[in-house]
């Protein structure tokens, strides 16, 4: 198996640029998640790799085989790329049985009947669908349809499997189980996969590496841990988790740390980006790093409890700090004054975006 390489890919619809120079790689056996909000270009990137969209510039290759190269004028037709694609809607052919849906790719490759039987049965068994081979798609549940779609994409051993929001059509409850099941399948069968999702938890759970897209460019990429714990930009920090926001002014900078001040509070945090005293900046801290404390100390703020919410496995509390609202988990004391600690190594200070 070979490495998938995308170089400086551009794509536009009319005058509207969708991808503005995206580069990425996918090594054999690796799972990469394309994460982003709607309109970020993640699905377009996936479909460009599949050959279903028409880029205007750039290169896509798997090992020696060039799928698309604007400079060389190469644009391999979809059907010759031999990739697997799992559609968001599954796109099972309603007029073919489960078996025939999965077998179709092999039939197109002139595989012998006995071989088709063997490989389709194996693929269906792998996905726990052996007993459903003769059903029609509409006789299956959503989860079963999803498995058929995956079996169909895997059966002819494509070098890379592309998945477009593979879990989004499942019920919330089913989705978590399917996530674990899909991760297990990928690991067990050593699949190289490119997975599009808009859900950061899903991306972290399923992939080895995450590419965060923002309006057609890659904002940041890295392992789930890096993306969650060491965001380079405010956008990444906000996308990857739930946060408290503290807009303020920088008064001191030293050793990669900055002192951020606001009305009635001053906190040390880790600088992210260029900062100098006098800059406006935003302090961002994950909800779970914000802690309820028992009195005044360094990097603590005095707040007032507004309300608490019971979430089943924990409580979430809402505090008031002047005009600001801070949230944190844990058992808050009774209504009234409460100190919160924002540990300095967990508080990221991002420069405020330059006014456009």
């Amino acid at each position, binding site marked *: 198996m070979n490495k998938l390489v995308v170089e400086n890919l551009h794509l536009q619809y009319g005058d509207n640029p969708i991808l503005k120079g995206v580069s990425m790689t996918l090594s054999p056996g690796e799972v990469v998640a394309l994460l982003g909000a709607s309109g970020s270009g993640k699905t377009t990137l996936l479909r460009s790799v599949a050959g279903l969209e028409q880029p205007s510039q750039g290169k896509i290759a798997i090992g020696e085989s060039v799928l698309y190269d604007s400079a060389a004028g190469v644009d391999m*037709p*979809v*059907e010759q790329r031999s990739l697997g694609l799992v*559609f*968001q809607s599954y796109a099972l*052919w309603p*007029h073919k049985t489960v078996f025939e849906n999965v077998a*179709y790719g092999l039939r197109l490759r002139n595989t012998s009947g006995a071989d088709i039987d063997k490989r389709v049965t194996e693929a269906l068994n792998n996905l726990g669908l052996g007993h459903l081979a003769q059903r029609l798609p509409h006789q299956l549940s959503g989860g079963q349809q999803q498995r058929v779609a995956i079996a169909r*994409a895997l059966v002819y051993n494509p070098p890379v499997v592309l998945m477009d929001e593979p879990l989004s059509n499942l019920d919330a409850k089913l989705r978590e189980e399917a996530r674990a099941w899909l991760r297990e399948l990928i690991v067990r069968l050593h699949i190289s996969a490119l997975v599009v999702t808009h859900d950061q938890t899903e991306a972290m759970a399923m992939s080895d590496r995450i590419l965060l897209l923002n309006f057609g460019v890659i904002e940041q990429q890295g392992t789930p841990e890096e993306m969650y714990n060491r965001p380079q930009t405010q956008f990444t920090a906000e996308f990857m988790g739930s946060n408290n926001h503290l807009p303020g002014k920088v008064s001191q900078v030293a050793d990669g740390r900055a002192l951020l001040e606001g009305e009635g509070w001053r906190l040390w945090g880790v600088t992210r980006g260029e900062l100098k005293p006098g800059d406006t900046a935003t302090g961002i801290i994950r909800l779970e790093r914000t802690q309820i404390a028992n009195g005044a100390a360094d990097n603590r703020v005095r707040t007032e409890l507004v309300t608490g919410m019971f979430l089943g496995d924990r409580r979430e509390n809402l505090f008031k700090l002047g005009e600001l609202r801070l949230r944190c988990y844990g058992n808050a004391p009774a209504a009234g004054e409460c100190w919160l600690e924002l540990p300095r190594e967990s508080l990221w200070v991002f420069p405020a975006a330059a006014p456009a």
Partner: protein
Amino acid sequence: MNARSFSLPRTTVVVITAVVIFMPLGLIFWQSFLNAPFFNPAKHFGFDAYAFIFEDADFWTAFANSIVIAAGMVVIALPLGAALAFLLTRTDLPAQRTIEVLVLIPVFVSPMVLAFGYVVAMGPVGFYSTWASAIFGGVPWNIYSLTSIAVIAGLTHVPHVYLYSSAALKSLGSDVEEAARVVGANPLKVALNVSLPMTMPALFYAAVLVFFLGFELFGLPLVLGDPEGHLVLSTYLFKLTNKLGTPSYHLMAAVAVCIVAVTFPLVLLQRWLLKTAGKYVSVKGKATRQKLLPLRGWKWLALAIVALWLVFTIVVPISGIALRAFVEQWGEGIKLADVLTLDNFRGVFDQTDQVRAIINTLLIGTVGGALAVGCYMAIGLAGHRQRGGVAKILDYIVLIPRAIPGILAGLAFLWIFLFVPGLKELRNSIFSVWLAYTVVWLAYGMRLISSALLQIGPELEESARTVGASSRRVLTDVTIPLIRFGLLASWLLVFMIFEREYSTGVYLLGQGTEVIGAMLVSLWGAGAIDQVAALSLINIALVAVGLAVALRFGVRLHE
């Protein structure tokens, strides 16, 4: 992708389509600027033909009559059709399912047959007229007046308005109406302030459509306008055929160009309206079950009005034909039991040309219908999933036949078969009629095919591409199997339309090309009422078989 979109089969389809559409049209234009028929060696270019018809007072009367009738039809059909749509989609009117089917019958009965039905039922000595005069001492109506023609045409075109307005009402999400109820509007206010404005584009579209159909009207004015000499443009054109003794092709072509000059802008207007109408349809709410407006006591009044309309547009003409087909003659003082006979049908089956007409009509509906659907499918697939280029060209050229009334298309194809060397032999085969039918109904057929193609999600085809199917394999393995049912349904609908068609075959009528519709026009002109009645009934029976099969298989009777 753009280089690939001009593949050989696709280009072939586009070229053939363009040729069969533009050749006859071009020939009409060319002929209209000649001073004699195109086969006459002494012809030369000029505006003589236009000068002649513009000086003819009959032309202007016919033009005015066409506009009056078309406008009258809009005035009658629009409110009735819209009200009918509202009653059937939004209220608890009884017997809705039955009415929904009955409403569409006038669409599938040949206007020629309907017109004849009105003559034998309500003409001066029609069945209902003689019964009425026995009661009132005189016939209280005159169906040969211009007003009567407009009223009859208007009432028989109510289904067209109904179809478009009910489609608009059905696609209108109930949530927008519920939202109006919640903020405090009563049902009447909702209908007036929300439903009506949102269906306005569809109503406007239907109005243009009915006006357009009124302008093309041929069978009704031919039969009903004759006794008092009321001409409309199409019948004026028809009468021109023998006006000067010699074939006056140049004059007919000039009239044809005048008709197309009115209809073509209307077709473009319809297209534009359809696009504008789309902005409302796309606002789709959740398909929750609509709470129907209770009509309470008004229920029976509404039902009575609908029933009255059904009796007038379906029962009266068809019962008239059915009776007339089984009597020797009819008039004042004749007792039904004395004149009952099967001789009319024997008369039909004694004439080889009429037997041929029945066989040809059956063939053109079944085999011809299937071939036509095949052609429409080829055109539909040529433009399928194509952006720009091919799709746009096809989009516009398939519109053009809409602007050409059947009688003109028949005339143009007659000329093609006379004019183009090597086609003369085909002129006397049913192929010539089939080709003309297929082109005349191209836009209708394309709507059927494209609504079937629209049902296929693009990802079903994309997924076949990604597992390795070439675009041709995608067509044969995914796209075509998925529209199977749509193709069958289209075939049934095209069958009914082809059985019903009459005006397109008029000029192509000859030995070997007889079809019932054209035969009726010819027999009517010759005054052979007995055979017209019998053939009309046979024609109705053929359409009824198609209708029964379509209903049996749950085919939607409109797109």
